[in-house]
Structure formats: structure tokens, C-alpha cells
């Protein structure tokens, strides 16, 4: 089960939507909330449709349409999305009106757009795609589940072109609530000093990233997805290391074959300990890079990480803003993305140069 990434498009708190440059300078943020830098949607989605869509749907649709265009594909054979929170904005609007108006007649617009499959459905509707359509809502591995589904579909149908994406949004309500749960840092913080504070909490982020995946190579492929795996609440670092070792062994490689280890460090001292321990245990000589100082923490952040990794492999260079430790090899062949979300959901994505 492998897939070529034919195109990749991301809307994130960085200037990522325009693929003509690749992370050419860091968008800096003060505070614990990183919102997406959004394009002019009217250039991508018909204004009549655009007006009715929530921000998450616009971000997703803009990425999806651009991804298809970049890959030169009018309609894919499957649309698969992953989102932990789904359409928070519409859910919040409808829930607020149910409660504040005490179940008096309300308008159904926000309700019908609140279902988790709205992004996948709206993309299908925009391009009239009648094929396979699925939405995973598996917390911190929602995007990874979508990828596994895509890899399985590609092995079921080698001719298929699959559009897969991950997305989650921050709303004022979700940011307030997640702040109260202690997920975010209190006090002054910036994404430029995220990894220097050694304190509790992280910074909130959001984003959408879509990929056109195919089992057949083409001229412009960015990279190859070799494998994806998830595991749940490992007992300790030994179990985590075992999962990673057997994941690599199944691909007939070892940790030393990894040219770049992209980790889900998010600035929370306790959360990040796992990555430091693993670096010592398995990847002591492997260069590593972070990504959550760019996009913030959210459950489908690995979609951003995959977008970044695919571009690194394609460009064979690591953008300076990643603050990585030196890569010595001439060619970046294999990149491993390892993330965990609140030490509950863990995931591994292995990609390689084409």
C-alpha cells in the first residue's frame, strides 16, 4: 500500500497556499492562537456558493479545488476527509440558537452545514464527483485514518486518483473552551519562542491541507507515502519505541535510514518529553525538525506536516525557518513524521523521495 503525492495544497497560519514559494519566512504570532492566512476565495469558489460556506468549508474547498487543478485532474475517484472537530462554527451557531431561543423556530442553515461530512460533501457537489466519499472523525488520528483509507482504495483500484485532506478550525468558542481545559499556554508567548519556554501548554492552531494521491507515478510527483500507522495510549516510552521500530521494520528499514524526523513537539514540556526520549532511544543521529511553531496545535496538524514533508522531499532542502538540526546527507530520501495528540493518539507517516 503506497501512494504518490501528485499535488499538495495547504491553508495554514503560514503563507502556504501559494505553492510558488515554500515557507519563505515565518509568519510571527504573539499569543496562543494562530489563525489561518486565507486566500481570496472569490478567485477559487464561485462567490454565490462561497457566501454560504463557513470558514472551514471554504478553506477545505479552496485547498481541494487547487489540489485537483495542480494535479491536472477534473474529478477524482474518491474524496476522503479527516476532521476531529468538524464544523465547529456552524455547530456553535445552531447550538447557541437552540439554547438562547429556547427551541423556538430557527433557521436550518447552520444545522445542515454542521455535519462532519460537509466539507467532503461540498467538494463533491462543487465538482460533481459521484464516487466514494468518506469522512473520518477519529480525534487526533482523523487525517491518518483518511490516509489509510486512501492507501487501501489505491490497492483496490490501481487506476484511482484520490483526494484526501485533513482540516480543523478554531472558533472563538472553541478557543475559550480549550483554553479553560489548560491546553494552551498562559502569559506572553509567540510562535518564535514556543520551544524555549519549557512551560505547560501549547499554542492553538488550525488549517486545511489536501493531497491528490495515485498509485501510478507521474512527472510532477512530490513524494511517495510509504506507510501510515496509528496507536493508542501507549503504556510508556518503551511501547512507543516498539511501535515505531516495528513500523520501520515492516518497511524493511531502520531508524538510521531516516533522513529527517519531523516531530509533533508543541512547546508543552510534558507533551514534548516523549519526542526527546525517542530522539535519544532511536533517532540519536537523525536530524529532526518541528512544525507546530508554524501551524499551532490541532488534531489534524499532521496534514500540515505531510504537506511540509512532501515539499521538503521534493525540494531536497529544509526551509531555514524550521530550526532543524543539521542535515548532513546530500539527498533527503526518507522522512518520518511522528506525532501524538495529548499522548492519546499517536501516529506515524513515512514518506520517501520518488
Amino acid at each position: 500500500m503506497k501512494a504518490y503525492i501528485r499535488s499538495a495544497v495547504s491553508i495554514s497560519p503560514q503563507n502556504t497556499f501559494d505553492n510558488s514559494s515554500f515557507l519563505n519566512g515565518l509568519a510571527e504570532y504573539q499569543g496562543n492562537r494562530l489563525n489561518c492566512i486565507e486566500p481570496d476565495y472569490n478567485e477559487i469558489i464561485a462567490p454565490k456558493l462561497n457566501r454560504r460556506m463557513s470558514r472551514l468549508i471554504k478553506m477545505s474547498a479552496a485547498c481541494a479545488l487547487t489540489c485537483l487543478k495542480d494535479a491536472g485532474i477534473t474529478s477524482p475517484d474518491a474524496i476522503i476527509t479527516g476532521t476531529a472537530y468538524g464544523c465547529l462554527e456552524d455547530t456553535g451557531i445552531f447550538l447557541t440558537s437552540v439554547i438562547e431561543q429556547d427551541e423556538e423556530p430557527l433557521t436550518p442553515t447552520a444545522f445542515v452545514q454542521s455535519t462532519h461530512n460537509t466539507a467532503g460533501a461540498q467538494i463533491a457537489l462543487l465538482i460533481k464527483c459521484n464516487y466514494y466519499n468518506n469522512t473520518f472523525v477519529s480525534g487526533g488520528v482523523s487525517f491518518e485514518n483518511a490516509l489509510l483509507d486512501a492507501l487501501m482504495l489505491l490497492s483496490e483500484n490501481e487506476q484511482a486518483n484520490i483526494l484526501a485532506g485533513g482540516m480543523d478550525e478554531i472558533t472563538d468558542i472553541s478557543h475559550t473552551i480549550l483554553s479553560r481545559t489548560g491546553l494552551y499556554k498562559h502569559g506572553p508567548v509567540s510562535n518564535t519562542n514556543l520551544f524555549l519556554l519549557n512551560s505547560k501548554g501549547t499554542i492553538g492552531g488550525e488549517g486545511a491541507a489536501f493531497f491528490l494521491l495515485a498509485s501510478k507515478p507521474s512527472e510532477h510527483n512530490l513524494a511517495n507515502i510509504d506507510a501510515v500507522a496509528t496507536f493508542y495510549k501507549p503504556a510508556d516510552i518503551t511501547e512507543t519505541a516498539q511501535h515505531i521500530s516495528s513500523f520501520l521494520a515492516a518497511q524493511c528499514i531502520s531508524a538510521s535510514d531516516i533522513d529527517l524526523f519531523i516531530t509533533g513537539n508543541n512547546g508543552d514540556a510534558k507533551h514534548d518529553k516523549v519526542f526527546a526520549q525517542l530522539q535519544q532511544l532511536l533517532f540519536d543521529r537523525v536530524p529532526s525538525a518541528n512544525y507546530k511553531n508554524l501551524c499551532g496545535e490541532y488534531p489534524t496538524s499532521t496534514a500540515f506536516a505531510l504537506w511540509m514533508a512532501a515539499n521538503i522531499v521534493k525540494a531536497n532542502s529544509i526551509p531555514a525557518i524550521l530550526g532543524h538540526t543539521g542535515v548532513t546527507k546530500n539527498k533527503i530520501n526518507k522522512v518520518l513524521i511522528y506525532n501524538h495528540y495529548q499522548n492519546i493518539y499517536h501516529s506515524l507517516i513515512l514518506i520517501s523521495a520518488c
Partner: protein
Amino acid sequence: MSTVVFVAGAGVITGIGNNVPGCVDALEQGKTGIDTIKYLQTNHRGQLPVAEVKLSNDELAAISGFSPSASRNVMLSMIAAKEALDNSGIKDIPDLRTGFVSATTVAGMDKTEKFFADFLPDHSKGKLRDLRYHECGNITAMVAEKLGIRHYMSTISTACSSSANAIMYGARLIKHNVLDAVIAGGTEALTKFTLNGFNTLMILDEQLCQPFDENRRGLNLGEGAGYLALVSERVAELLKANLYCALTGYCNVNDAYHQTASSPEGDGPYWAMSGALKMSGLQPADIGYINLHGTGTQNNDSSEGTAIKRLFHPRYPKLSSTKSFTGHTLGASAGIEAVFSALAVQRGLIYPNLHLQTPIKEFAFIPESGFSTDPELKNVLSNSVGFGGNCSSLIFSKL
């Protein structure tokens, strides 16, 4: 890649019964679970009938092992998933890679509503522990932990076709040798959010719903959960005595017509049924019974009926909508109906379509009005259609 996946267990809880025997009894006796609202705290009590599971949160907690303050969604999921797991015998086989794939549309919205009532006037208020059930994936994880399943878990949400896609995904994980066994289906509890949502869409029937009736007025909501235990061929051989049937066909398509409406030609359900038939290698004439999506809305029944006409005319199988018993249980409906369909093919059961008075005039078929048995029943088709154009069909075949 292996090609066959077997059904080795089933678990279900709905407004007509708290387990498989309870639901089958009600289906045989033609007893609907749709009634006036008793448990849901809503202003629509007395006005909108629904099919509630006939247990309070305290009673559900006692059976499920969750705290009475947990979401109904997670308790319903636990009860049905545990029945499917226990009843499959897969726990007795050591070292299986077992997964849990569950579907839901609004997860623990019942608790989120409680939180929001306090939170909206004052953002520092509201018990955060009530929000543990808000994320769909959390419900799956909580139940998986209680079931002792850690190897793989996944959650799917494609509106009213959600649990058909969970069953498909579970089956494919087995075929791709990712798992040996999987508990797959879905769960949904009634909430003010969904009741008011469907009410504002003006598609709720204030009387008992009449799916596939010429004079149908809309749907009644319901709640519940339904799961199948799916196993690989290798596991099936070890479990021979316990097998229900095989899952021989499935197909997921998108109607891509409208966010909430189905195409008048029924393209989505037509493609889903055709795709499932193609996969199973069956002809339309091989299908003995269709468990309809049959919500009772003008749009759904007309669209689904047209799709059936296109595929089956002039030889129609027996068909019925069991939503006339269970109400429309949204993310759980395809899981519940998959359980009913698997039992139908295993035991030769044909369920009635309650409250049918005048069959839809433009169609040449008439849904079943009474319960019957058919020992010759070989293949059962189950349809689901959801918001966003998500349509999926499943085919269960006799062993």
C-alpha cells in the same frame, strides 16, 4: 487481499428493544417503538413523537458500566457493541487483531447542550467534563477501552449513512489484513440539537411516520446503536457455529445533487445498490429483501423508490422500512438496519413496514405490511442515504 468477510455477531439497542432478542420480538409482533417523548428534556415533548430507548440514563448506566452522568450516546454504543462482541465468540480466540469502528453524527451533544446552557451566559461557567463526549472519536475510544480493544479504532461521520461506511471500512481493514476481527456499526442518542435541526427543516412527522406511503408526512427521530462483529475467513473457520452470514457486497457513492436533498432520479441510491450488487456478483433478481432507508420524507422515499424502480422493475423483492419501528436513528441507523438485515438473512425473517395505508402511486411495488418468514431468503440489501449526498448500500448473503 481476501475477498469475503463474515458476520459473526450482532448487537443492537433501539426504541423497540434493548438487545437482539428484544428487537426481533418487537419486529415479529409489529410493535413500534415510536411514542411520546419521555426522557429527552425538550419543549417539543407531547408534540413530536420519537423512538427513545426505553431506559433512563441511570438504567443505561447500570447496564453499560458508564456513570449516569455520561452521554446517552456512549452508553448506547457500549451496550450494543458489547452484545456484538460477546455474542461473536471472538474474545475466546487468542491474539486476534481486533478493531472497533464506530459511527455517530452528534456524539455527546446531549452533554454539550447541558454545558452550553451554563456557558453561554458566562464563559467561565459550564462543567468541562460534560464536553468529554463532544468529539465523535472520544465516544469510540471510551467504548473501545471498556471493551478491551486497543489494536485499532476509527470513527466515521457521513450523516445518516455513517454506520454503513463504518461497516464497509471495517470489512476492508479485514480484507487488507490490517485486522482479523472488527466490531463495526454506529450509535446515536436523541438530542435537542438534532430534534430542533430536523424540526426547522420541517421534515418531522407529528404523527407516527408512514414510510413509503403516498400520504407520508415526514420522519420520526429515534435513538440507539447497532454493531456487527465482522471476521476474516480464518477467524470464521474457527467460529463456524456462530456465523450469521457473509457481507458480500457494499458500495459508497455520492449523489452530489444537494446538501440535504436527494436527486429526483435517485442516482445516489441507484449507484450504491448497483455497485454493491456488482461487488457481490449478484443480479437484482437474487435479492430477496430490501431493508429500505425509507425515512418517511417526501424526498427520500420518492428518490429511493425511483432508484429501486430503475434497478428492479418489474421483479421487485420484498421490501420494508424498519424506521417505522425504530424511528430514524441518524448515524446509528445503518448499523441497526445492518443488524436487522444480517438476522433477516440468517433466519429468513421479513419485517413489516408499519402504518402503510396507501402505497405510493407512482411505484409498482408495495412494501410488506406484515411480518413473515422465508426460509429461501438468500440475499438482503440494506440502503442508507445521508445529508451531503452520502449513499451506501450493503448486501448480506446466506452461508
